[in-house]
């Protein structure tokens, strides 16, 4: 059942997307170092979107992933470059799941309000699914930690003011906030397919003051793991928005493009192809609904991981397949930069790869499912 919040949100998202989120804006912003529009980000904050899943005590709306997904799906449809999932869900989620109350009270309202933008700098190796691989060191000193190491594939890095960094200490994982312009912190950007960037963050004796430490040890590991799985679910919702719009475009094109004196949508070879894409979209939608509901019920860690992996695998595969075939259905025009189909494929590729692709998530699911049954 759709909650009242959900119904209102759906209207508000549709309205906002309809008013200003044109593909022209997406094209204008792609490849720019700023990556997205700060004014749009502030509007999203005013609508309450940036704090949807942040608890009310910290200036958010305290709603679930089911509601967060509504915004992500809308942004996916519009190919918005704003790093909603990376910053408002992943980085904010990692802080919200940590246990430094003072830090949460100071930072989360500013994130929900759009005044501060943080990105999560956790990953070091491509394909890593959890924090076990982290090699960056957090060396304690009297005022906090010194951080050394290199963080890669940081989504939303380009426009972030601060980074939530994960590093390893003798007490286990350390999660803390490092300012972008702090000494010992340097950022390089690598252009990715969808016109945005992954950041590579070099930490060279960067200081993490004690009051900026979000969590240490088990608490940090759990905060990171749960934030990653929740962000995977929302990335799935974003992928769902991407695939849905791409499918609509393809079906519309099949109805209007005429060859051999008939709309190409009258040819059975293409009809059945489109139907198979529709089935993938329907599966993704059903899996997304079930998974978001299950995640909002607060499952234990292995169950949460299995749900997030199942969802990310299906949404990634469905979105990449639908957007890839959208190019084929459109023919040569679909392969041009001028036509939008390619933009949908590129966003699908990026979101599918980010936080683990379908093959990796199926393997993680296999490890969990086959172990549970043994």
């Amino acid at each position: 059942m759709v909650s009242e919040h959900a119904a209102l949100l759906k209207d508000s998202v549709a309205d906002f997307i309809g008013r200003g989120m044109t593909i022209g804006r997406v094209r204008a912003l792609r490849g720019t170092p700023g990556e997205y529009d700060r004014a749009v980000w502030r509007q999203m904050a005013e609508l309450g979107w940036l704090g949807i899943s942040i608890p009310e005590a910290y200036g958010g709306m305290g709603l679930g992933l089911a509601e967060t997904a509504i915004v992500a799906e809308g942004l996916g449809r519009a190919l918005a470059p704003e790093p909603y999932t990376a910053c408002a869900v992943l980085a904010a989620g990692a802080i919200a799941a940590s246990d430094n109350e003072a830090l949460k009270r100071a930072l989360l309202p500013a994130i929900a309000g759009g005044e501060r933008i943080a990105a999560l700098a956790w990953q070091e190796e491509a394909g890593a699914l959890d924090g076990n691989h982290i090699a960056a060191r957090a060396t304690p000193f009297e005022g906090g930690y010194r951080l050394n190491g290199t963080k890669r594939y940081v989504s939303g890095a380009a426009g972030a003011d601060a980074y939530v960094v994960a590093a390893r200490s003798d007490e286990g994982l350390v999660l803390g906030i490092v300012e972008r312009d702090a000494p010992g912190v340097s950022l390089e950007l690598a252009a990715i397919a969808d016109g945005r960037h992954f950041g590579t963050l070099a930490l060279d004796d960067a200081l993490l003051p004690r009051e900026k430490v979000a969590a240490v040890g088990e608490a940090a590991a759990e905060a990171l793991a749960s934030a990653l799985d929740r962000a995977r679910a929302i990335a799935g919702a974003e992928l769902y928005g991407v695939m849905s719009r791409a499918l609509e475009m393809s079906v519309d094109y099949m109805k209007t493009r005429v060859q051999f004196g008939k709309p190409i949508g009258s040819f059975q070879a293409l009809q059945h192809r489109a139907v198979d894409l529709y089935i993938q979209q329907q599966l993704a939608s059903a899996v997304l609904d079930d998974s978001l509901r299950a995640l909002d019920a607060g499952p234990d860690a292995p169950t949460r991981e299995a749900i997030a992996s199942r969802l990310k695998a299906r949404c990634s595969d469905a979105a990449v397949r639908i957007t890839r075939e959208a190019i084929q259905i459109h023919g040569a025009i679909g392969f041009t930069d001028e036509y939008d189909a390619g933009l949908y494929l590129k966003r699908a590729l990026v979101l599918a790869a980010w936080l683990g692709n379908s093959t990796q998530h199926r393997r993680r699911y296999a490890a969990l499912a086959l172990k549970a049954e043994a």
Partner: protein
Amino acid sequence: MADIDYNALADDDFRMRVRAFVEARYPQALRFLPRRVRMSEIREWWNTLYEHGWVAPNWPREWGGMALDPGKMVIYLEEMERHGVARAADQGITQVGPILMKYGTDAQKDYFLPRTASGEIIWSQGYSEPNAGSDLANLQTLAVVDGDDFVINGQKIWTTLAHDSTHIYLLVRTDREAKKQKGISFLLVDATTPGITIRPIRNIAGHDEFCEVFFDNVRVPRDTLVGGLNEGWTVAKALLGFERLNIGSPRRPQYALMRLEMLARAKGLLDDAGFVDRFIAIKLDLEDLASLYGRYVEQVKRGEPLGHDVSSLKIWAMEAWQRLTDLLVETGAEDGVIEGAHDINGAEIDFLAPFYYARPSTIYGGSSEIQRNILSKYVLELPS
């Protein structure tokens, strides 16, 4: 038992009652059969259900049914599937009963409904013909009005379990001039009527599950007609929604999935990344199917009719089931082509039976290609 209002029970309570009953009374030897069951094997279970008042979950109480609402109906079916209850020749219950209640005369209802519930009358479905498969409306079996009778000539084929049936419900052409769908009528025919010949056809699994039925000047009374003359297409089409939901149930492939996992453990394949990648993809295809199925179940429970989009459920369910049994046979290597159940490192596996069982699923009940045509036309609204 007949006095209980099942719909007034809490879902869990009802579920537990069905589960306990099936668990205690349904024969072990007939659970999860990878083939259609013959009436001779399952007659005793039919009688058990009948005596308990549970043989017709979808029928109203006045006709001896359980009068289950859609939500309870889903639970009933889920519990049957959980125990691998084989599907008897139950088309009298699922098809003829509801059709008669909607379109039948009082005399037809009084005669056929009690006998159908008791199992005295067993029905088979005479729809398909040699030249009317996917193009069912092209059927040519002719019924000519002659005084108070119809005289039927023609041939039906793929008539499942006709040799176990006492009666056949038939689609026949009664107007050769009218447009395809318009000249068809729906008849209820006693299978022992002179002129009817039933010949089983052996399928690739080696079972005689379906038949050819020949009609040679078969004379039946006029009151075998259900609904109006030439209105048979409407009568027959009234029931297709719920059948497509049932056919997409994620439990059907469970037997083969369990066998494949058992086999994988017996052969140590769960350490083989190549195998695990393929196995888990199919396992997830089936789990995702369960989510899609659940969505349609909720729709049915809310009392909403199923739309054409439910065809996607059938396509995905059946094609995933086939991929699963393909992998089962492939994983068996040479063992995969040995007939019957046999021992693989302590696991008892029948490779070919599940493989064969899944084969016709993309053909019967509207082939996958027909389902894609339906989705294309009615859901994506693509031009023809």
